[in-house]
Structure formats: C-alpha cells, structure tokens
C-alpha cells in the first residue's frame, strides 16, 4: 500500500485528511524545509508542494507571489528534490507535487518522475494537464509508483469525471470554486454538489480544495463527507506575512494546522 492510500485507509470514519500546501523554495530553501516541518508537526496528513513556475495560470495572486519569491531565491527542480529528500529523512508523510507541465516537459517526463520517485514523492498533479493529454504522464507515473492526481471542477461533465477517475490514483482533487486558487469567504453550495456528483462515479478518496481557509470551511467540507480538505493560499499567506521571522512563521503554521485539524 502506498503512503497516500494508507492515509485514507487509516483515517477514522468520517474524519477527513488534512492536506496542506506550500510552494517549495518559498521564501528560500532552508525556510521552506522549516515550513514543511511545521506543517507536518501541526498534523498535516498529506503535504502538497508546489514546484514553482514563472506563469502559474491556475493560481491566484497569493500563490503567484510565492512562486515569484521561490524563483527569485534561485529555486529550481533540483532544489525542490533536495527539499523533498530533507523532509523524507525525518517523515513518512505522503508528499505530492503540484506543478505545471512545462517544468516536467523540459526536464523530460521520465527523468522528472524518476527523480521524484527517488526523492520520495508519492503523487504528482500537473495543473495544466487534462486527462486527454495525460497518456504518457500516467504511464510513466505508474512505472514509478507515483499517483497521478487530477483536478475535477464544477464544469467537468459526468462523462469526463468517469474518464478522469479511471486514470487517477491516490485521490481526486475537487476544485471548490469556479476560479483560481485563493482565500474565499465561504465554501459554495456548488462545491458540495460537486462532491456528491463525483461520489456517484468513483470510490477514490475525494479532497476539496481552492478557497478553503478557515476552520468553519473545513468543518463544512467534513460534514459534507469530503475525504480530504486541501488548504493552500491560507498557509502561503502565513508564510508571506512572516517572511524574515521564521520562528514566528513556524509557530503560526503549526497553530493554524492544529486548529484546522480540530475543526474536522
């Protein structure tokens, strides 16, 4: 059983996994490792790491700026793999990459996945890779034992949900809003409808993300029966607010994750 599968299998009934996101290399390599540690010690069940890209079109301003900070600090895929290896020395928490296809393409799909596997990556989500284009990536991922994670949105048809579910492993990332990443006021009814709609087509764990930032949001998702709750921009905002104050950043991140965990 892979690390991701184990998390969902072990989760007590009705208690969703907490999935925390940070951009690898933001604001720099050393701090990024401390951020990962803080998220894990706060109780993060699955760690999502963004591999920064210069043109992250699926992301809102918060994560865009984090990508820019990481790139300005000289972060490359090599740096990101080093960060993963550091985390792996001390933790068995599943780690999932979120990135854009050009980063993977430039390095070579096989090389990227092989290096990811060797560093200890469990899943990879490519934000601009719809299932129709994912043949090669899914085949390579399978050979490397890496779960291909896919997005499903409110505009995804039932027919495509089936196609995506048939190719995905690990969990499905359900996009709770119509739009890019970023903090929102509330979890929309559309998100809950989506959860129920996808549930009819698959047994894969379903995680809700985009726009989820408060314990109340997390509770709403948990009550609706989500298997996972994904939080990105709210975490990245804590990083942004405390750049240059790593001790405080660590404390706030840990406290935030504990609070979210309690809510679900």
């Amino acid at each position, binding site marked *: 059983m892979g690390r991701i599968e184990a998390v969902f299998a072990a989760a007590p009934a009705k208690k969703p996994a907490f999935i925390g996101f940070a951009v690898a290399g933001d604001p720099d390599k050393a701090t990024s490792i401390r951020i990962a540690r803080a998220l894990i010690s706060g109780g993060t069940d699955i760690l999502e790491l963004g591999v920064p890209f*210069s043109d992250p079109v699926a992301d809102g301003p918060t994560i865009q700026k984090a990508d820019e900070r990481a790139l300005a600090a000289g972060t490359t895929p090599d740096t990101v793999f080093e960060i993963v290896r550091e985390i792996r020395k001390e933790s068995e928490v599943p780690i999932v990459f979120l990135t854009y296809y*050009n980063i993977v*393409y430039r390095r070579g799909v096989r090389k990227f996945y092989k290096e990811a596997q060797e560093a200890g990556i469990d899943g990879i989500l490519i934000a601009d890779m*719809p299932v129709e284009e994912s043949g090669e990536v899914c085949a390579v991922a399978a050979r490397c034992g890496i779960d291909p994670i896919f997005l499903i*949105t409110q*505009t995804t048809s039932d027919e*495509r949900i089936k196609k995506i579910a048939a190719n995905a492993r690990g969990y499905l990332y359900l*996009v709770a809003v119509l739009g890019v990443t970023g903090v929102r006021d509330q979890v929309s009814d559309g998100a809950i409808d989506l959860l129920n709609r996808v549930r009819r087509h698959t047994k894969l764990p379903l995680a809700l993300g985009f726009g989820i930032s408060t314990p109340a949001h997390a509770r709403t998702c948990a009550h609706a029966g989500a298997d996972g709750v994904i939080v990105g921009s709210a975490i990245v905002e804590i990083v942004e607010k405390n750049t240059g104050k790593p001790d405080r950043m660590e404390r706030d991140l840990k406290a935030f994750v504990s609070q979210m965990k309690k809510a679900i």
Partner: protein
Amino acid sequence: MIQKGRYGQYGGQYVSETLMTALIELEGEYEKVRNDNRFASDLAALQTEYAGRETPLTFCPNASRELGCKIYLKREDLVHGGSHKLNNTLGQALLAKKMGKKRLIAETGAGQHGVATAIVGAALGMPVEVYMGEVDTVRQALNVFRMELMGAKVIPVKSGTRTLKDAINEALRDWVANVRDTYYLIGSVVGPHPYPLMVRDFQSVIGREAREQVMRKEGQLPDAVVACVGGGSNAIGIFHPFLADDVELIGVEAGGEGIETGKHSATLCAGNTGVLHGTLSYLLQDIDGQILPTHSISAGLDYPGVGPEHAMLKDNHRVTYVAVNDTEVLDAFRFLSKTEGIIPALESAHAVAYVQQNAERFDTDDIVIINLSGRGDKDVAEVAKMQGCL
C-alpha cells in the same frame, strides 16, 4: 494535422480542468459554423461593409526600384481599426454571439487586438474587458484611450513581466472564474485547440485575397511572401493559402537588440519546445522551463511563444524563419514612409526590414509580397520620442 488540434507534435490542449468543458463546447460550436453558409455570409457581409475588405494588393514602384525586385504590399493596414486583427475578432465575436455568451474578454500587447475586440464589442453590442500589461499601457497609451472610447474596459496587468504574456495569464484566470457566460477572444494563433485553428481560418482571408490579386495583376504566383511573426496570426493568414504552392515563405521575428544579447522575441530562431498558454510549441525559456522575459521595439511581437502551426512549419522547413533587429526595423519604418508614403506598424516593418536587408537575394522581376499587417500611426509618437523629437 495528424490528430485533432495537433500540428505535427505541436498544439494540443494543456489547460486547467475548469476550461476543458468550455474548449470542448467551443470546438463543437466552431465545427458547426465552419460549414454553415449563413455564418459565412454574415461574416462576409461584415468584412465587406464594416471592415473594408477586400484590402488592396498595392504595387510599390519606388520601393521596387530601390530594392531591385517587384514589391507588393498586402494592405491590412487599411482594415478598419488599422490592422489585420479585425479579421479574427469579427469571426470570433460572431461565434460568441451565436453561442449566447454575454461578455468578451481579450488580451492585448500593442493594443491592436484590444482595439479590434473593442470595435466588435461596440458593433455587436457585447461588453468587452481587455487585459493589457502595465508596461504596454504606457507605451501604447493612445490605444488604451481608443479602446475606452469604444466602451471597452482596459485592465492593466501588474503581475510578472507586465507585458503580453502576463495579459494572457490574467485573461485565462478571468475566463476560469467566469467561464459560463464569458467568451475569451484570443488574438493570435496561440493558446489551446481550437484557437490556433480558428484564428488561422479567420485570418486566411488575407492570403486568399492576395493569391487571387497577384494572379490577376501578374498572371503568376509570387516568388516570396514575407510576414512578421509574434504569435503569428498575420503570417499564418497570408502563408496558409500558399502552403501547397512553389512560393518561398519567410516569417520575420523580432531580433530586438540582437539575438546574442538575449534581448529579443525571436522564439522560433532562438527558442526550444515547451508548453505555455495551453499549447506545445517553441518558447523562450531557461533550462528548467521558466519563461524568459522578452524584448522588442514593437509591443505586438513581444511574446515568448509562437503558434504551434509555425513550430511545425519550421521543423518541416516549409517556412523559413529569420530575425531582424530593432535598428533595422526603424530603418525600414522610415524607408517605407519616405518611398511610398505608407507608414507601417513597427511589427509589419520587420517584414519590410527583412526584404530591405536581403534585397540582393531577389532579381528585378521577382515578385515579393510583404504583408503590411498594420499601420504605423500608433507608433509614430514612440518613434519620435526615440529620435528625441518629442
């Protein structure tokens, strides 16, 4: 094309899941109108009565004498709005209307596509919002005013390099959030399928007319057709109807301050393959796949990608892609103004510059068609400033 939306290995649909349903819908609707006589006649009527087609193929006696070959200009500068961009916006806006979309969004670099979208928005009664890099809103301030005059809202983009690429990023983000009622009107043969196909089809009117006109005037096909390439819509528009002919096709990219300086936008000449804005093509990028900043004297060519069909035409050597630098472009801008009384857009001046720099390649009876994709009025203030005249 060997499979849907592919040009050789290039093209495709690399977009976030939210947009896939919209693209699938767009593909289907476009396939319908492509074979619909009513749509064709509606578009033809607008092209004639509103846009001012067909545009002339102007013989240039003075430039021909100076350069030692027969120079013809395909006068897209005379299309309403001042560039070829309206060919595409008329087609796509008609389609958007047919699809029942309520709002048009667009990106713009030099402002010409933004202006052309503002025009169709006003003409067809649809609200328009245009994303434009903050840098470009400054260097093309007059076009911002033009768009606003026609009722469009211009949104300055402050992220990234604050130029065309970032304007596309923001337009894509807007589209993701408003995909149900919004139509994203892309201005070039870039982006995910079906955009490169659709824009090429709408722009091919340039080449179809030029081919007929040169046959009428000269009784033969031209020896060469030359066009500037940024995203590549005017070039593919004039090239496409000549692809099967024995005609040399030359695409001229923005060499900026020189390819060796790194300050250029010559994607096909100096880039390598990658995925940006939904399509696999050539890109200007670093070794890790991060997109590089670009430079050109003309905002309209300042883009780190290029249409996927051009990528294929480069690889199979059907089209030759070259680059000219900013100073050569300024020379050509003055040359055409002085010899023919036609002020070219700085973008189009790249094509003129290539012929000027390579005049010795052509014999006196060689026929060379240059696609004059836009008029230079928008650039006059900027060039005057460079010369210290303003």
